[in-house]
């Protein structure tokens, strides 16, 4: 068990101008489940690999517990990693795969067998101990990879998109199992994913990265309710938050012919840079209103999910400059009698608007 901290850690690949990870500052508490999330190329995997010791740290430092491990090789860091493709040794049985690290550490055969069997029991692998990875299903291989990590009883688990090779249903199942297992073992875990649903459901805290820069790190609830900038607002949540940019006018933000109401002082601060303001509202914070009231939109597609329905709409009178961001998603009660092509008017719930400076992209409260 240990805390982990990134201190101004950067990684610059040779022949690249932009750092892959740029001055990352992150404190991870003992026993915490931290998820690194972001689009591909955001530096999340690189950050994890820096922590693992598989990637150099060009500046800054990384501390596990109270030990600075910046320049230590992986084996001295007391970590275990689960790889995206599992990286199981193909010529070893499940038991040998799981016990390999223990064998290298010089742990006796009996002790090894006990620990492997224990882990196998937790992961429901007891019947497969003598099989080779080739003879296992994807889900079983994934569990072997997990088992290889937990038998070592390390200070930190590192997981690099461990679910991305599973089919959708198994992924949902396994994600709950991993989260439960982590709570039970209480081992500090850093988990990388590009899937924001995975991030939100699994993490105690979620760190959102973009272009190597940490955007925000907080609990899933705060990320959802108070995104720090436009990127986080658009990245977290599915379907994504609706974001529209318009001029600040008296009483709010001009979007097409309508004005979205924003309190005066918030509006002033948000418009300080260039007079434009980005407003965001989540699909569930939108009401259908009467004709002529609120934002006029045209329905493009209706998605019926059973539990609710999503209307994919665009602004009916969108001027050219908002067209690109004018796809508005609305969550409604299921079986709402709405057809595509229909014109609707949208109102937003009070206090549900997120306001951002259109220039700096930062949140304004």
């Amino acid at each position, binding site marked *: 068990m240990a805390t982990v901290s990134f201190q101004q850690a950067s990684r610059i690949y040779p022949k690249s101008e932009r750092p892959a990870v740029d001055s990352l500052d992150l404190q991870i508490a003992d026993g915490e489940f931290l998820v690194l999330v972001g689009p591909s190329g955001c530096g999340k995997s690189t950050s994890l690999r820096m922590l693992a010791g*598989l990637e150099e740290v060009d500046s800054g430092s990384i501390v596990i517990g109270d030990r600075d491990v910046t320049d230590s090789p992986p*084996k001295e860091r007391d*970590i275990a990693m689960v790889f995206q493709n599992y*990286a199981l*040794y*193909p*010529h070893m049985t499940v038991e040998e795969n799981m016990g*390999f*690290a223990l064998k*290298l550490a010089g742990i006796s055969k009996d002790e090894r067998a006990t620990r492997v069997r224990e882990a196998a029991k937790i992961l429901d692998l007891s019947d497969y101990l003598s099989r080779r990875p080739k003879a296992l299903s994807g889900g079983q291989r994934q569990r072997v990879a997990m088992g290889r990590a937990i038998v070592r009883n390390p200070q930190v688990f590192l997981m690099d998109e461990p679910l991305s090779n599973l089919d959708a249903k198994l992924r949902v199942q396994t994600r709950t199992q991993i989260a439960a297992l982590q709570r039970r073992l209480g081992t500090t875990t850093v988990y990388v994913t590009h899937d924001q649903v995975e991030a939100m459901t699994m993490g105690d805290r979620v760190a959102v990265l973009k272009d190597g820069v940490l955007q925000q790190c907080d609990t899933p609830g705060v990320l959802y309710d108070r995104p720090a900038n436009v990127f986080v607002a658009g990245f977290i949540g599915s379907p994504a938050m609706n974001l529209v940019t318009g001029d600040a006018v008296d009483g709010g933000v001009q979007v097409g012919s309508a004005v979205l109401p924003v309190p005066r002082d918030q509006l002033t601060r948000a418009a300080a840079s260039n007079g434009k303001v980005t407003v965001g509202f989540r699909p569930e914070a939108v009401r259908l209103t009467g004709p002529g009231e609120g934002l006029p939109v045209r329905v493009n597609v209706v998605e019926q999910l059973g539990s609710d329905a999503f209307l994919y709409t665009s602004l009916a009178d969108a001027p050219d400059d908002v067209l690109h961001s004018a796809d508005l998603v609305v969550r409604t009660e299921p079986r709402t009698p709405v057809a595509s092509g229909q014109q609707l008017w949208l109102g937003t719930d009070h206090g549900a608007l997120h306001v951002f400076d259109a220039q700096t992209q930062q949140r304004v409260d």
Partner: protein
Amino acid sequence: MTIASGTVREAAIAAPPPAPAATSPARPRKRRQLTRNRWGYAYVAPFFLVFAAFSLYPFMYTAWVSLHETSLSNINGGTWVGLDNYRNLLQSEFFWNAARNTLTIGILATVPQLCMALGLAHLLNYKLRGRTFFRTVMLMPYATSIAAATLVFSQLFGREYGLINTMLEAVGLQAIDWEAGTVSSQVAIAVIVTWRWTGYNALIYLAAMQSIPGELYEAAEIDGASKWKQFLHVTIPSLRPTILFTIVVSTIGAVQLFGEPLLFAGNGTTSGGSSGQYQTLGLLMYQQGWSNFHIGQAATTAWAMFMIILVIVGVNAVIGRLRARADR
């Protein structure tokens, strides 16, 4: 709708049931397949024609010759002696001498050659500056003519002015008469073979190593494996089929070893040294057929070499099969 379904039903009745088709006599079916695939056969035919003309026919003809007492000038004549040549061969001390030499030179050459190739491939697999240069250099010995290489090496191993003896004397050791001794001459020949084939095998290993996923090494590194343990527990097991392949190829090469011992003394005699100390089976065959004019006996030796190769490859295949089964 009704029309459509009616048609389907009719079609189902009209079509012959599949089961009788499967049990119908095999010959017409085979012929039908032959005509259907005629272009496929046409395209592979050239290979088999060339194979038949230059491999299969000589092969059978050698077997035929081996049953006769004859010489090269009268190869179609001669007297039928049945298996006499084989009996003579098995009773000949020259054959057993050559077989023993072939075996020892083979081991002396193949084992270090493959071990070194493995090590070199491992080094070349690192991100080196000028990697392509090193890889090309690796293949140079293979591209060199045996004659040229052997002549150079026989100079190096020369008794009076050879570079190696000069160096031995420089460090205070005794000069060795490489060509005269049994062990020394065989070692020298093995060195030539090793020099020539190590790079070739290294490149084969390198190709196989590059298909090993990098994640495996990272996983091993995190599991606490040193570079050496990674080599032992990740690289070697992944290369097992390739290693088996190179062993088979090198063994075949070793059984057929001819050029190096022929030219080692510098005069191209087939006796393999004054007391036949490095006469291989290939040399013996040549000596029988071309120096002693017993082409029938030479053909017998050629067949014996083929049988030896067959046995070795067979044993290798069985080992590979057993390993693969154990892996499952």
